[in-house]
């Protein structure tokens, strides 16, 4: 059976709407009566990924694919890209500007948290060519 797929547009630096895609996905999964703990993990990872795009990426797309046995989040943007992916995955490393740190961001925990809370994560990026983060969540692993 083909998955149920929905995509949302993310706008760079739009803090008013930032997070809405994750909340919409959260509501969708709730309607489907999914396990609340699983929904919480997906929502948190989605939110961190979405905020990364709003803050660091260009404009992006947030897609969710729902299957009977898994949920996949695909977050891509056309921003500056990640120069050193392993470094970006380190806890505490952040490229957040001073402005962002003042807003409470830049603890450097986004990507590491996403990796911890998803079942599988793939990051593809190239400097100047944007970034794609794909996260898998399995039901009944």
């Amino acid at each position: 059976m083909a998955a149920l797929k929905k995509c949302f547009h993310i706008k760079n630096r739009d803090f008013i709407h930032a997070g809405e895609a994750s909340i919409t996905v959260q509501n969708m999964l709730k309607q489907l009566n999914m396990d609340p703990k699983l929904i919480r993990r997906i929502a948190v990872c989605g939110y961190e990924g979405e905020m990364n795009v709003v803050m660091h990426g260009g404009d992006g797309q947030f897609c969710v694919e729902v299957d009977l046995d898994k949920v996949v989040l695909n977050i891509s943007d056309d921003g500056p890209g990640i120069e050193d992916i392993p470094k970006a995955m380190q806890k505490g490393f952040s490229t957040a500007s001073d402005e962002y740190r003042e807003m409470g961001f830049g603890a450097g925990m986004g990507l590491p948290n996403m990796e911890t809370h998803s079942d599988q994560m793939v990051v593809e990026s190239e400097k100047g060519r944007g970034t794609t983060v794909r996260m898998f969540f399995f039901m009944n692993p």
Partner: protein
Amino acid sequence: MPGEHIVFEPAYCTGCTQCVKACPTRAIRVRRRKAVHSKDLCIGCGECIRVCPEGAVRSTISHGIPQDLAEMAVAIVSPILYAQFPGVMPSDILVALKRFGFHHVVDLTNYVEMFQFAVEEFIHQNKTTGQAPWPLISPICPVIARLIAFKYPNLLPHIIPLKRPAALIGGEIRSQLQNIYHIEKPLIELYHITPCPSKALAHDVRLLDELGYIDRAIGINDIYPELIRYVEDVRKQDLDLFSPEHYGNVTNARAPLWGMSGGEIAGMHVDKTLAVSGLRESIAYIEKIEMGLFPNMEYIELRACPEGCLGGPLTAVDRYLAKSTVQQLIRSLGLKRRLPREKLLKLYDQGRFMSDTHPSVMAERYDSLRPKMTIEIMKRVEHLLSRIQGTDCAACGAPDCRTFAEDVVRGQADPRDCFRLREKGIASEVDKIEISG
């Protein structure tokens, strides 16, 4: 049913769909140009009453001015009543209210103070016991409680299980009066003068303790025209200041402040707090709480009505005017706490402030009322949506295209109601639309 007291009157309804769009649980549709609502899905928020331009929706909570007051009629007065009379001292309003024939009129100031103490103590103890999950949510607004029970049941444990001020006195007053007057308890009737349609007797909400104690709720709007005349009389007359009429006195502005959005937390010693009012805003924040975006927050005040209870559908005076009246009262009466801490702590430890039932019991009531959804249904809905390509025009009688698509897939709506589908000539073939791949 929580929404039993909301009544739609077809005679005035023009089918404009304002209510359809305003309803937070999407319980209303327009069928054959008239609004109809599902009592199962209604949480009694009164948004439909607020937005209807024709006055075609009303709450049957008010029976108008009580003509047949009981032998011992006692009015429990929401402090919002004081906010309806700019420049008038609350004590004068209470004197005027007695002229309806109430034997006692009860001001809630002391009980608001008790409630706030109980919240502070609960939060303080929760830091060690971790009994309830953070952030804690205020139990005051019945609509918020029902909304959470219906749509966000995982958050029910966050609601602080304390008795509301009206319940604190409601549970005690009959015994007190019986001891003094030596009359049978059934002859004592409690009336709640309130701006809130949700305070009507509702069978689901055992959480709302005061509803178990209160016999009848009266909307402020229903007594306002007469009350304002009595108030004018009281202020003009040569009063016998030694008569029993004047024995009651409101000593500070703590209670009206509490009825204002942000006022509950302004009056408490709790640090990490947030106050939100308005239905859309409250829903947005509830969804954020659900996502865990407030890990450090201790207490969140949520009110379904804009500006808090001051904006209740059964008020008589514009909410901003009422707000300025409350601010005047604060300046003239102050907010000084009066009740002795040791005494309150003793009552708290005896469990006198805890609600009779925990908010979580509401979940079982609502579980069966939520429409079921599967991936298969959702895919059909998404597919139908892509065929409709609509603009949420509500001409079909549903609030938006997604809800209409859900109704169709569930067999509760006719695809021919959608003019987009009719335009494309596919309305009668919706059943045959294959979900591709």
